[in-house]
Each structure stands twice: as structure tokens, then as C-alpha cells.
């Protein structure tokens, strides 16, 4: 008899539970008409950011993103001017192989590349998934971002040791960076200095320096 009453009680509890859910607000998003508000830091498509005033691209052709990209989705075309200063010719992101890891955004010190919150870029042919400079710039036009704040203008001592492991490129990196906005790491400067690796600090400076210093090569190999 007790078992029976207990059973009936449980049946009623079950009904109440489903009844409660019946009245609760539903969670369905009706996709084409309603969309998720994507969080600001969500990793959607890769875009290039431009300066808000001048409209110029923030990219300084330091090639860090290209080397950080584990899928080799980024290709940068540039030409060297006098004093080794590079100018960007084309910046290509192949969205067919991009894995949306966000490494490019993390490595970038100039707020030049970012993963935007947009996630709808399906097309019917693969070619149109390979985005070039203009398209990337266009997509990044309205993407909000914060310019990295440089605390210490004197960055050369940090930049120099980084030049040693990869003698060719990082040296070049440092030069164009210096005139524009003094390349050194932003916040975590004190921690950064003893380590020889990085010219530049990303959101996670320690990790990066470990990645890059031991094997002089771009971190693609590790991924």
C-alpha cells in the first residue's frame, strides 16, 4: 500500500515536471529570422582590421599570423621597399582550410587581424571561400576592436634577442614595426624581457615564447 502511494506520488511528480517545462520559455532560435547574439570573442571568420580614422589596414606585414597559422590558411604577398620596409600586396585567407583556432589573432600585435563574430559564409563554390585583401578589409570594416596600448616606447632591446634565433625575418619584423607604433609587448613587459624569444607579446606571452624559441621555426610544426 505504501509502495502504491509512493508510486502514485512519483507519477504526479513526473507530470508536474513535464508540466513545468511545458510552461517554461522555449529555447529554440528560429534561424533565418532569429539569430544568436554571438559573444564578442567568439571565433567566426577571419577579417582584417583597418584604422578607424585613416581607413588604412593595420597590418604591418610582420608575417606572424602566417607563421602561427596551424593550417597554413593565411598567405601574405608583399614587396620590399627601401630599408626593407614591406608593403602589403595581398592578404589571402583560405576559409576552406581555416580551422578557426584564433592563433592569428593571438599572435598579432597590431590589432590587424581578428576573428569576427560572423559565421555565415556558406557558398556554392569553393573558390569564393578564398578571401583576398579587399574582401577581408570590407568584412572587418565594422568589427569593433581595441588598439593595443603601448606602455614603453623603448622596445629595441627586446626586439634584438628575438632576432637571433630567426635571423632573417624577425629582424625585418622589428624594423617596420618600430616606426609605426613601437613594437614591444604591451602589458607583460617585465616578464617578457628575460626571455629571448619574442619580439612581441600576444595575449599569452609566455606560451608563445616557448613555442617559438626552441625550434626557430614557425609554430605550424607543433600543431
Amino acid at each position, binding site marked *: 500500500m505504501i509502495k502504491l502511494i509512493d508510486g502514485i506520488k512519483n*507519477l504526479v511528480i*513526473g*507530470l508536474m*515536471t*513535464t*508540466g513545468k*517545462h*511545458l510552461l*517554461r*520559455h*522555449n*529555447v*529554440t532560435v*528560429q534561424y533565418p529570422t532569429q539569430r544568436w547574439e554571438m559573444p564578442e570573442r567568439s571565433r567566426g571568420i577571419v577579417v582584417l582590421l583597418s584604422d578607424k580614422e585613416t581607413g588604412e589596414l593595420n597590418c604591418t606585414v610582420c608575417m606572424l599570423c602566417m607563421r602561427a597559422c596551424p593550417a597554413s590558411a593565411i598567405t601574405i604577398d608583399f614587396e620590399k621597399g627601401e630599408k626593407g620596409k614591406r608593403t602589403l600586396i595581398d592578404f589571402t585567407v583560405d576559409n576552406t582550410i581555416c580551422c578557426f583556432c584564433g592563433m592569428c589573432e593571438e599572435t598579432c600585435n597590431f590589432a590587424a587581424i581578428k576573428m569576427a563574430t560572423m559565421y555565415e559564409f556558406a557558398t556554392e563554390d569553393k573558390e569564393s571561400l578564398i578571401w583576398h585583401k579587399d574582401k577581408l578589409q570590407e568584412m572587418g570594416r565594422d568589427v569593433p576592436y581595441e588598439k593595443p596600448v603601448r606602455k614603453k616606447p623603448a622596445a629595441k632591446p627586446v626586439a634584438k634577442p628575438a632576432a637571433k634565433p630567426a635571423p632573417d625575418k624577425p629582424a625585418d619584423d622589428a624594423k617596420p614595426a618600430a616606426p609605426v607604433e613601437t613594437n614591444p609587448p604591451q602589458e607583460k613587459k617585465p616578464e617578457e624581457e628575460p626571455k629571448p624569444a619574442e619580439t612581441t607579446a600576444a595575449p599569452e606571452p609566455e606560451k608563445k615564447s616557448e613555442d617559438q624559441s626552441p625550434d626557430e621555426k614557425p609554430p605550424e610544426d607543433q600543431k
Partner: protein
Amino acid sequence: MELKGLFKYLYELLASTGLPQGWVDLIAMVALALVVFGFIALVVLYLVWWERKVSAHTQQRLGPMRTGWHGWYQTVADTIKLLQKEDIRPALVDRPVYFWSPVVIFVAAFMAYVVMPFGDGLIVADLNIGILYIVAITSFTIIGMLMAGWGSNNKYSLLGGMRSAAQVVSYEIPMVVSICSIVLFVGSLSMVDIVQSQAKIYQWFIFRLPFGPLAFIIYLIAGVAETNRTPFDLPEAEQELVSGFNTEYSGMKFSMFFLAEFINMFTVAAIAVTLFFGGWHGPVLPSWMWFIGKTLVLVFVIMWFRWTYPRLRVDHLMEFAWKFLIPVAFINLILAALMKYSGWFNW
């Protein structure tokens, strides 16, 4: 808004055309059958949509939303699609049995509406054996299911058909016994008499303690089991039997099964309303609205069960029917008889 006068007026209009009486009656009969059929088809279309909505909102989804306001004509679209589908007939089926089983099931489900009191005076035929007739005619559903199971020549279908036969036969007993206790009080099998004996709200059998609510619960459980709905949907248990007795059916024939299932659900709710909730009685609104409104609430409760309770195991199902429901139903019947005899609660 009472529809009684309308039907009477239409009949007199027909009679005044000067046709012979036999023809007038025939036309009236066919017209009435079509009206009932149309009503049931409408109800089923609505119920399928409602079922999908209830299930969706229980799981905090939205259900059909795109076709019309909250997807109200989704079932219409589905029905049209089903009618267009190819009628597949597997090679080794028992042809006549396979062909006739949907018809048997559908007719059995449909025939119950002959004595359904939709409202004051809105009854096709007030048979003096009303409720007995319903119990008898709805039992034909078992034959249809067995035919479908056997005729399909498929192990899953056969298992489903056998299970449904066992289940429906078992649960028919507590159902009929609980109906008996009501009939005992009313003293008549006629549906109209049963409804008229509950004119006031305190006369509703659900409020005649203690036997009324108990009889209702027994009836509801048995009714859910009769219509093969969760938690008693063993004949169609998807995980075990694909789709049970209607596995091999497609297109129009499948939609007949589907239609019959929802008609049966509506029938069970409508009979419960007639027996326990005062049928068409209610203030202000016209009687047929009361009847349909009450029925829809009960239908909702049955759907609510479906999305709450998991399926029973076969042996538990049988055990529950024979070892628990039937004894309780008989005790309830004796209780009702004692109450009737002593005049207790005999309003």
C-alpha cells in the same frame, strides 16, 4: 448557437422538396455521415498539430512554426504529402488481409461516433445500448491490428499485432467494469441518459466520491492502453518493433492507421467526458462547445502522459492489468453497487 435547430431545419427543408421519404432519409443519412466524418477529420488534423505542439513545448522546443500562424496548417500539408505517396505493397503480403485491415481499423474507430452525444440533441442515433455499442465497436480495432500484423508477413508487424491484441483484450476488462459502475448508477446504457443524469456539476460522476474518481482513473489508464499510446505503446514500440503492426504500410493506408489512432484518442476522451464530466452540460456556452472543450482538455492530459511516462515492459503491462486494475475495478463496482443500494450520494 445551438446546432440542434439547424439540423432539424435542414431536414425539413429536404423533406419539403417532395422527394419520397426513403430518399429523404437516405440523403439525410449520407449527409450526416459526411458531417461527422468531416468533423472528425478536422479534429484529427487539429490533434496532430496539437500533439506536436505539446511535445515540442514539453521539450522547450517550438514545434511547427513556418506553415501559417504557429504552423496551424502543418498537418494539412502533411496529409497532402501522405496522399501523394506511393502505396507500396510488399511482394509476399496476404493481399486481402493486408488491404482490408486499415479499413477495418478506420471504420471501427469511426463507428463509435454514431452514438457520441456532441451536444444537446446533437447525436446521430441515441441507441438504447449506447455505451455497450461503443465498447463493442471499438473492440474491432483489435481485429484490424491483428489483420495488419498477420497480413504484412513481417515479424515485427506480427509481434506488434499480437502484442496489441493481448494488450487491448486485457485492458478492455477494467475499462468495461469501470464503465459498468457508472451504468449501474444511471440505470441506462443510453449515452443521452448518462449525460442527462449529470445535469448539475455536483452530479458529475467524477465528484461522486469515492467510486467516481477511482472509476475515472481506471477508465483513463485502460483507455490510454486501448489506444496504444505511451506509456502503453508496446504494439508500436519503435525501438523494438520498428513501428509495430503498421510497419509495412505506406501512403494512404498508413494515414488511415494514423487517423484511426487519433480518432481513438478523441473517442476515449469523449467517452470519459460523457461518463464522468457531465458531457455537454455547462453554463453560458452552447452545449457542443462544452463537450468539445472538455474533451480537448482530456486529450491534452493524455498527450501530457505521453511526454511524461516511459514505456512499460510487456510483463509489467500484463501484470498491471490482471493483478491490479481488474481487482480494483471490481472492488469499485461493488462499492458503487453498495452506494446505489444504500442511497448514499444518490442525488
